[in-house]
């Protein structure tokens, strides 16, 4: 009767088991530091330009949207606060994560998927290397290091984007007031959830990408399927978790 639940539950089980093994391997020898550096370059440096772009426009569009609402209440001076808070709490982490999911969950899934269907992963095991240690752990660590940094960058660029719209463009407020307002409004709570979210998303993106890659079956077609699934599944989980984390922080 509940047969339709079997496959998602099995997948979830595999996910948890992979997460456990990948995490334990962080403290076990050997360390593949070189692989981690390469991944940090692929994920972090590779995502820089697009993070800057997306960050800038999300901040700009926030300020633009808010300008009308705020002027209705005669509160245009608050534009800095609103931009900063929405960016740091929500938009920065989620947009950056979705972007990196699109770029790198797919990249990881297709890379590991091709390795799976060409039996490189089997060969690795046959030749004495644990694929989780060699492939999954470096990607997980690289993602956990780079995604929070990318998010901070997106937040900062976004606040600058909001500034450009609010001050030189629409003259909603003064330069000094915008920055003061933006800076003062951020509380410990905002920063904490703004940094916890990218860390959780990093886990989701790296592990979903790796899981769908490693599970690939059915040749080249299978690689395409795994890639698409990884992006969709990672994106959905990002939204679920941003809700859950926000739910917790709202009450703090």
């Amino acid at each position: 009767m509940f047969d339709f639940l079997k496959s998602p539950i099995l997948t979830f089980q595999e996910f948890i088991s992979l997460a456990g093994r990948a995490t334990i391997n962080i403290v076990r020898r050997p360390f593949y530091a070189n692989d981690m550096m390469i991944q940090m370059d692929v994920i972090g440096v590779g995502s820089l330009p697009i993070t800057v772009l997306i960050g800038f426009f999300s901040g700009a569009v926030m300020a633009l949207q808010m300008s009308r609402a705020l002027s209705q209440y005669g509160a245009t001076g608050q534009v800095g606060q609103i931009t900063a808070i929405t960016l740091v709490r929500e938009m920065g982490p989620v947009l950056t994560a979705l972007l990196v999911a699109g770029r790198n969950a797919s990249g990881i899934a297709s890379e590991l998927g091709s390795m799976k269907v060409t039996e490189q992963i089997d060969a690795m095991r046959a030749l004495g290397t644990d694929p989780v240690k060699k492939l999954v752990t470096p990607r997980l660590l690289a993602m956990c290091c780079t995604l929070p940094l990318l998010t901070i960058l997106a937040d900062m660029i976004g606040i600058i984007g909001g500034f450009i719209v609010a001050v030189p463009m629409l003259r909603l407020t003064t330069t000094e007031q915008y920055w003061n307002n933006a800076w003062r409004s951020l509380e410990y709570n905002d920063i904490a959830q703004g940094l916890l979210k990218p860390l959780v998303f990093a886990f989701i993106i790296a592990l979903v990408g790796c899981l769908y890659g490693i599970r690939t079956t059915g040749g080249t077609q299978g690689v395409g399927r795994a890639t698409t699934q990884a992006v969709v599944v990672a994106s959905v989980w990002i939204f679920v978790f941003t809700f859950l984390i926000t739910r917790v922080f709202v009450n703090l």
Partner: protein
Amino acid sequence: MSSSVLKFENVSLSFDGVENVLDNVSLEMHAGDTLIILGAAGAGKTVMVKIALGLLGSTSGRITLFGQDVTKFTEPQWFTIRPRIGMLFQEGGLFDSLTIEENVAYPLVNRTKMTAEQAKPKVEEALKFVELGHTLDKFPSELSGGMRRRVGIARAAVSDPDLLLYDSPTAGLDPITANRIMALIIQEREIRNATSAIISHRFQDGHMMANFRYNPESKKLERMPEDSPLRQRTRFLVMHDGRIVFEGNERELDASRDPYVSKFSMHRSIH
């Protein structure tokens, strides 16, 4: 009787949704044996050798390697026994991101304490053996299908394993390249004296393994004498839908009247 290398006792495997990919398979290989595993695509040949290497687990049955019961081995335990087995993968399994030299050195550098420098002479020798001494710095994507197969053979054999498993070494190759690969495998068998299992869907491959040996003096393949012990030790196995439907020597294979089995024998045209 020489020692048992590999033993399957009633080994079965079902995947989620696919029943009996292997169905009650029993077989045994002794040191110095050559086993030729024939069967159509999807018969379970790859699955069988992957179970022998611990890359897949069995659902039931008992597996013994070098006299050791490995049925319940954990992955770290498998890491201790896999160095004794060399495998050529059907899809190649060469690491895209490594050069040919690094690929062939991988089993040596990764499993022993050898450095890349120390491994180099052995790597060069293994590659020269498969006539690819000039490709050290190339990447797998720069080689042809037949060349990649030969690199795979070099990597499987470089660490002098006691058991060599070749998964479909001639699949997808033209007849000339395929025969060249088979000649290399026969040469490898003669020189390393390893126990070998060869998966194939071509009856010619089995025929070559069963009838030819490599003569190190003349450096040529030659027909084995009728009473050669190697001939006695070459057995054929035909698989169909996860089951072993035939086991025996070449004469018995040729004599088989079973329509499926005879598709893999030299005299299949008679039927």
